[in-house]
């Protein structure tokens, strides 16, 4: 078997460059979004790319920056990052094509005051342009003060079955106002309790599209749209299918799909997964590698009493995303009790951080088949060890130069692992647990 010597450390560092070219980098530990307390959004139409090579019309919330310039619509809408107890103001205008409807936003879990616009079913709405709205009707201002930190979503309240399907939704993250009692100011907490601590965070915002609906919208065949026949064939995490979600945030070739989904961490760290059902279907997401702990739902800790923290947390490897609901999960991995040394150490080698000492130096338990008896996966390093590398067959891409442990985090409704009939696609993502020496920012 391949055993890694002390040279692996240098090889790993040298190969990081090659690795980073392929996998998303930049703010690995945090979620990309817009921080602040005042946001100006515009509902617009644009196009996204799906991993089967197709493109489809979407409606999304675009951002107007401080200079007054409005960008393109994005799918999903911008992740808004706000602070507990700080009032939030969001203005919304409507640049959707004529007859698409008014535009609005609802914020489940928050008490919102909406001014301006026209009365709608769920809230005030920004009037359609072709109906010649007055200035007051053209724009809605939503204000609310988030009173509890946590993970939330926002989505359209106008003709919601169509507009949410078309892409008018996004994530809303409320950060705690202060370090919780007994906490460390240098650490990160999701809620006002020390047991919500995390090292890195990742967004898992689930959505789906039915290409027939989007084509009917593109052709403006409003009277043909029939949601009783709804049948999605494309599924997205943070607005992208696999494998597009492996690429970096803000890649130029996905201009309207800025967010990736590429979590990476070291053994022993805690990853906070902000899990949002933004669409209309339930997706049972299965996390290979280890159990997660569910600590909160709908922005509220799973708590037996106020102040008790997440003492009702439950663990599993699979959780359903419920449409319109959110959950917070904490995931970690150490490889403990596997029964063999995951680093391929000799007994005299030093322990790695969080290494399970009783397995230190224990030999690999089986004989692996010879190279021509197996198919090497694209993310196999050639070695079964963390940080290891081994001989790869000719033509192998060598996409795991750092010898990380890849775990597929995917929907267990496996039909959803396709993009419009093409395997693989859809709701596949990979967590990479990297050797402790591999830098992740």
């Amino acid at each position, binding site marked *: 078997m391949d055993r890694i010597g002390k040279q692996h450390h240098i090889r790993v560092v040298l190969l990081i460059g090659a690795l980073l070219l392929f996998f998303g980098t930049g703010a690995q530990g945090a979620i990309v979004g817009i921080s602040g307390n005042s946001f100006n959004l515009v509902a617009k139409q644009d196009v996204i790319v799906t991993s089967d090579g197709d493109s489809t019309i979407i409606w999304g919330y675009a951002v107007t920056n401080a200079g007054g310039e409005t960008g393109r619509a994005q799918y999903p809408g911008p992740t808004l990052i706000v602070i507990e107890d700080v009032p939030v103001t969001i203005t919304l205008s409507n640049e959707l094509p004529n007859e698409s409807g008014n535009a609005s936003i609802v914020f489940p879990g928050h008490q919102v005051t909406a001014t301006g616009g026209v009365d709608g079913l769920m809230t005030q709405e920004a009037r359609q342009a072709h109906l010649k709205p007055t200035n007051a009707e053209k724009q809605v201002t939503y204000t609310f003060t988030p009173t509890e930190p946590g993970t939330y979503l926002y989505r359209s309240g106008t003709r919601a*079955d169509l507009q949410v399907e078309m892409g008018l939704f996004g994530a809303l993250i409320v950060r705690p106002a202060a370090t919780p009692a007994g906490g460390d100011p240098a650490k990160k907490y999701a809620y006002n309790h020390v047991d919500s601590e995390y090292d890195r965070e990742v967004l898992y915002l689930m959505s789906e599209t039915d290409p027939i609906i989007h084509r009917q919208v593109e052709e403006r065949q409003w009277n043909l749209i029939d949601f009783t026949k709804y049948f999605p064939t494309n599924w997205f995490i943070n607005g992208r299918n696999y494998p597009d979600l492996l690429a970096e945030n803000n890649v130029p070739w996905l201009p309207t799909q800025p967010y990736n989904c590429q979590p990476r961490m070291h053994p022993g760290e805690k990853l906070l997964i902000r899990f949002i059902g933004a669409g209309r279907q339930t997706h049972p997401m299965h996390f290979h590698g280890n159990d997660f702990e569910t600590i909160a739902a709908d922005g*509220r800790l799973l708590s037996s009493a106020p102040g008790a923290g997440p003492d009702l947390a439950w663990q599993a490897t699979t959780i359903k995303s*419920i449409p319109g609901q959110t959950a917070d999960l904490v995931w970690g991995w150490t490889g403990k009790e596997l029964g063999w040394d995951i680093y391929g150490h000799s007994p005299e080698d030093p322990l790695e951080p969080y290494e399970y000492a009783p397995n230190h130096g224990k030999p690999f338990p089986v004989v692996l088949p010879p190279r021509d008896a197996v198919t090497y996966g694209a993310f196999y390093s050639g070695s079964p060890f963390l940080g290891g590398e081994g001989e790869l067959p000719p033509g192998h891409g060598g996409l795991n130069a750092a010898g990380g442990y890849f775990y597929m985090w995917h929907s267990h409704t496996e039909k959803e692992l396709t993009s419009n009939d093409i395997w693989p696609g859809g709701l596949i993502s990979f967590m990479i647990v990297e050797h402790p020496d591999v830098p992740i920012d």
Partner: protein
Amino acid sequence: MFSKKVIGFQGLFVFLCLLTIMAGQAVAAEYWLQVGAANKTMADGSRVPVWGFGLDPDKNLTTADGAISVPGPTLRVAPDDNVLIIHLKNNLSEPVSLNILGQRLTNNSGPVWTNFPADTETWIGARPAGNYTARVRSFTHETQPGQVGEYRWESFRPGTYLLQSGTNPAKQVQMGMFLPVIKDTAQGFAYADVPYNFELIVIFHEIDPTIQNAIAAGTYGAVPNATIGSSVLYEPKYFLMNGMSYPDKGLLSINGTEPLFQGERLLIRFLNAGLETHVPQLLGLYMTLWSEDGNRLQYPRQEYGFELATGKTADVIVVSPKNPPWHYPLYDGKLNLTNNGAYPGGMFSYIRSSVPEHLGAETVQ
């Protein structure tokens, strides 16, 4: 007139309370129900055949047997009642039975198996030995067409329960044979420490008119001239809360016209009588979930929405955040907001806090 229309829940609640009070201290809740065929008008004006329950007002099941509704009438077992008795008259042309998920039918003399698909032989009480092809037709004892059957549940436990047909449920429950059965632990208490001021019952279900028409026409199932053999390709066109779809007037204020002053507690009993999961969702307020399927949770949960699987019930408390008037949307988070393809429709309603002087001025959105 309204002989086949849905009876509003508020009126029925008051009526039944009066009945209970007049009956004095009861040891059993006893009801006379009929099940029969009717037509239901959807929010877009189309009519769909249904099979549903109706309360027989003169309790003799021989003269006019009471109006049929889908959902059926709410039955209540008083806090100090232990027994529920239903006398059921079958006005359909096939056998029926009753089943309450989570409660034990004490006088069950079923189940009933048949030699599917011919249904020419039946076996009652146990599967015939060595016979692995017979299929159950009814979970409990059957009441034949034109007959009256008796169903008793003793040691009836408190909570919110769904009573359904126990016969070929994919067919009969789908046609509308369901109703809520409710028992409090004490007057004004859903559970020992869960008091409430007002109650709202919300029943979700869907209708696939193609299947329901085939069932009514006798061309559904394992029959020679079947156009549809099973419900496996169920594709509902109508989505209903309490038998209504938006913009039916009853959904504009689904909890009626009560004032809910600040701090008062609205108990919402959710039931999913349909064939698909729904997600009751409240916009602007949180609900405290106190029970599932009539079982009080050890630790209540704060959520603004949750998954309500088929056949499931859930009791939540919503605390009025301020004095009237106010309203908040209560709808299906899966966004089933269509009436046979037309928007707006489906599972959308408001809960309201109203006072009489505001009623006329309330704008309906």
